């Protein structure tokens, strides 16, 4: 019989909740948590369960990957499964991260499951089969069933159908298929035409990706009276990172008061951004968040006033949807303080 190994987090591994999220990776012989449900319909024996705390994977990613790959080394394994992760963001990212690493190292199929709202979907859907899962754990049986259906096809070498039919997130691959109903293009054209002419809903066969172009704002008329704010995706935070903003694929942001400061002092602020060499930014955080220069320009009367906070998150790997959500959360603060212009510092 073919063999499978599954990855789950500390919660589904029955170790504990948030307080155990730092749990270091371990591997157990046999089936823990969802693995039992999977074993009922999977055409392979689940020989081991890997359990890892979500925070451990999130904060010590390289260490966690290395440890888990080491545990898997030499074990017979025809497929690797992770989750289902539902809407749990850190868990979803962890499932994607470890599946990707396992696929690359051992060259075997990997399958996971997440809800569409899970940031792991955008980050990993092009790399692997991620089944479209429910948002809460009550959907466990249904999600496991879907994962097993696809896994069994992969195990038997059966052809995997399109994303729509199989229920996984499209991986950015478009292929030609023969329509089972044999309806020719001319009839599909007429159907679409009639619906479009009559303002009825229709389904295009070539969805055009939405380009979210933001129009450039009109220039500030009088800079001398304008209120200016500073926003960055460069990951500058107080050294203790009070808002626990992630170093990559951020879903969190923070705002930090600078009204009483002349500049961001070295050792009090640093970058937590994992996408560039932090040496220069740690040595002088003002190179990314130029509080120093803005204070000088304020004294010189170049612009009217400075909004008392700067806003910070991390841009690397962050999905457009998350970025948009975070911006929408920041904007009310800026509006409330009647900010006229924002200096957006990227890296």
């Amino acid at each position, binding site marked *: 019989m073919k063999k499978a190994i599954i990855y789950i987090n500390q919660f589904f591994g029955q170790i504990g909740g948030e307080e155990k999220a730092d749990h270091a990776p371990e591997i157990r012989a046999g089936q823990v948590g969802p693995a039992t449900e999977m074993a009922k319909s999977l055409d392979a024996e689940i020989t081991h369960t890997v359990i890892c705390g979500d925070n451990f994977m999130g904060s010590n990613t390289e260490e966690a990957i290395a440890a888990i790959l080491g545990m898997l080394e030499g074990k017979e394994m025809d497929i690797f499964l992770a989750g289902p992760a539902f809407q749990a963001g850190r868990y979803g990212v962890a499932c994607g991260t470890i599946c990707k690493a396992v696929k690359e190292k051992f060259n075997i199929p990997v399958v996971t499951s997440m809800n569409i709202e899970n940031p792991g979907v955008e980050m990993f859907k092009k790399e692997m089969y991620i089944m479209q899962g429910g948002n809460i754990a009550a959907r466990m049986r249904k999600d496991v069933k879907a994962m097993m259906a696809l896994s069994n096809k992969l195990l038997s070498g059966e052809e995997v159908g*399109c994303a729509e039919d199989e229920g996984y997130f499209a991986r950015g691959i478009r292929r*030609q298929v023969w329509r089972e109903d044999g309806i*020719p*293009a001319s009839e599909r054209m007429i159907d679409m*035409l009639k619906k*479009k002419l009559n303002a009825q809903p229709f389904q295009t066969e070539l969805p*055009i990706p939405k380009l979210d172009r933001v129009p450039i704002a009109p220039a500030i008329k009088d800079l001398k009276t304008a209120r200016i704010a500073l926003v960055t995706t460069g990951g500058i935070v107080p050294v203790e990172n009070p808002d626990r903003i992630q170093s990559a694929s951020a879903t969190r942001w923070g705002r930090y008061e600078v009204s009483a400061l002349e500049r961001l002092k070295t050792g009090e602020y640093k970058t937590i951004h994992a996408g560039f060499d932090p040496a220069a930014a740690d040595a002088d955080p003002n190179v990314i968040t130029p509080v120093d220069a803005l204070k000088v320009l304020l004294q010189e009367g170049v612009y009217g006033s400075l909004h008392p906070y700067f806003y910070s998150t991390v841009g690397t790997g962050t999905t457009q949807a998350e970025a948009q959500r975070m911006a929408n959360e920041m904007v009310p603060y800026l509006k409330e303080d009647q900010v006229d212009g924002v200096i957006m510092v990227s890296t």
Partner: protein
Amino acid sequence: MRLEIGNFYVRDIVLGSDLVYENGTLTINKEEALKFICEDDRITEADIYIAKPGDKIRMCPVKEAIEPRVRPDGRSVFPGYEGELAQAGDGVTYALKNCSVLVVGRHWGGFQDGIIDMSGEGQKYTLFGELNNIVLVADTNEEFEKREQQKKNDALRRAGHRLAEYIAATVKDLQPEDAEVYELEPMIRRTEDVEKLPSVVYVMQPQSQMEEMGYNTLVYGWDMNHMVPTVMHPNEILDGAVISGSFMPVSSKWSTYDYQNCPNIKALYQEHGKTINFLGIVMSNLNVALEQKERAALFVAQLAKTLGADGAVVAEEGYGNPDADFIGCYVALEDAGVKTVGVTNECTGRDGQSQPLVTLDEKCDAIVSCGNVSELIKLPPMDIVLGELEALGRDGLSGGWADDELLGPSVKPDGSIIMENNAMFCGDRVCGWSTKTMKEF
């Protein structure tokens, strides 16, 4: 304009002593037919074969397909191309149905030529796998292009059109089994019932991107590179006014057979008076320079607007560079307030991960997609090859290659082949036949 197409259904084709159509069987005297073909002294070698669905036949390099037709009144079936200029689309014509004349190079192929299989896995990839085909396999003395990748195929293509008309002549004095009638009242003289329906134009973009003459689609014998978009009656298209060119990767090609039977036009006719008011054709083209593309789009949108079209269907014959004409035209129509549907194929690469068209626009929200030109296709050997299979790899057919580090040569020693869909003769059937679509994986 009223066009009546009298249909003679060809249920079998045999070679025999006379050219005759009787009880659904078409008999062809091969020697006489070949003598007729060889009246063009450019033809150096020619033979005729019959290829029917289920036959273990592979054809390569296929250059053109034509439905055999004859005009009882003696007018040319292809006016301005193989006969005197005359109005097409009006009157009576006779057609041999379920039947086509295929033109296959005896030796030499090119970028614009392709493959047809009559049975097995490959059969479904082309319409002609389902038809009873009269296959002209021939060579010519057109030395200037023998080793050119891009061929005009002039002698062979003309031979095909001539043969189609020559064969159909046998039914000239017979009674057709049934008849199709295509009739549209003048655009501004339609009944109230029709007028109240949303009005629609069909915008055709035949291939015309060669600056040198002899390769492009012809309309009444005129090279379509040399025109700006104009209004045509759909009957003209169905009645031989347009002759397929010899230019683009062949899965995107619309053969003359496809024009004569264009399913998109027939489907629009079918809805006329019921759900739409089918105004007619805006005949556009495909261009090379951006300014030419923009000019054509401007003309199309203007014509649609001037005619009062509420809706339009745009179809392109080609992919890659012509996508810019397709999207440009689509956007121009939408900007003019014309609700538009597009029909096209895609090029997403062998791995399916490339952008489907070279340019995209969010306004193109209703597209019927007919296939991926770069999909890899593997087919087993076939008992009989008509033409020369080596041409697929040797002569630069768009979907074939001489050798590949990973995939090896397109043509294997045992006669099996691996190629891109690009080389399937008229395989993507954007003119309306396609039962393929594109899905996300």
